[in-house]
């Protein structure tokens, strides 16, 4: 028998896990605190970088808006991993798939709206001409 599980009477009663899941004690508290501290440090670093990118001339200025977008996406990733604990673990597969679908819809809504409205704006009759035509 390669795998022995201790089925002590009452050992799982009232505890929210199924046999075979690692016991709560196995995640040491210190390691979990370190995970949150690392996440906080990375998030603070990216936030500071974002505020720096507005002012600095180290970045090619016309690219500043794109730099801010990239930093924001990176920070969202840090939050997802360190705070929301979205992982590649098997019990997270459904969460990751739902997240991917959500991200797809968000991109469609935001970039789709900008694209369509930009084109509408371009092909619209200029406002002064429109007023002339309505007379």
């Amino acid at each position: 028998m390669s795998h022995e599980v201790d089925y002590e009477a009452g050992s799982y009663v009232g505890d929210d896990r199924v046999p075979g899941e690692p016991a709560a004690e196995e995640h040491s508290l210190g390691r979990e605190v370190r995970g949150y501290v690392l996440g906080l440090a990375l998030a603070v670093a990216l936030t500071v970088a974002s505020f720096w990118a507005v002012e600095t001339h180290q970045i090619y200025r016309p690219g500043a808006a794109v730099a801010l977008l990239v930093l924001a996406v990176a920070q969202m990733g840090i939050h997802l991993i360190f705070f929301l604990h979205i992982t590649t673990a098997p019990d997270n597969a459904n969460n990751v798939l739902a997240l991917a679908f959500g991200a797809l819809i968000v991109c469609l809504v935001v970039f789709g709206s900008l694209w369509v409205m930009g084109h509408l704006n371009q092909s619209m009759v200029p406002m002064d001409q429109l007023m002339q035509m309505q007379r």
Partner: protein
Amino acid sequence: MTTSALRFAHDPDFGPPETVLGAASGHGSGGPAPKRIVVGYGFWIFLLSDVIMFSAFFAAYAVLFKNTAGGPTAHDLFDLRNTAVETGCLLASSFTCGMASLAVGQRNQKWTQITLLITGLLGLAFLLLEFHEFSGFVARGAGPSRSAFLSAFFTLVGCHGVHVSAGLLWLGTMMAQFYAKGFRQDIRHRFLCFSLFWHALDIIWVAIFSLVYLVGTLPPELLP
């Protein structure tokens, strides 16, 4: 039941021996997932639908950004120092909320209450700063009815503020429940949902401070 009996009840091709013991593997094998996973998944679906609602507000804001109707622009209005303090409050409260979930994992009443109280106070500080900013805008004649740009701005950022207010009420009830009823399993599940909600609000704030405040204060000639 012995492990060998369980092993026969299961197709061993589907996973390593650990999954034979009954834990859901996430790949279609194993027994039902623990309730914590199912509750978290359901709430995650709700949060994603909330994020999609926010994405519609973001799209409206981006489309209407230049429609200032001769009124104040983002560059004139936004004060980045205020935004930086708000960001700090919300990020710190996200961290203390994480600490609270560790305290709940340890069944430590004192630290659960302390970390949740700090989380709530930081959230309250964020809300007060936001209210102060909004009332300042309105006093300067830059209320939501001034231009399409400001309508979209107040809708987007105000909607996030409403979520934070709802989160604060929820946080208060969680503190009361832990205090009165202890670390019961159903209450811990509610707290799991609350912590997901609170962290998700911080993610939305990341998008708001980067794409609304920081991009908005860039000189207009740098914007696409």
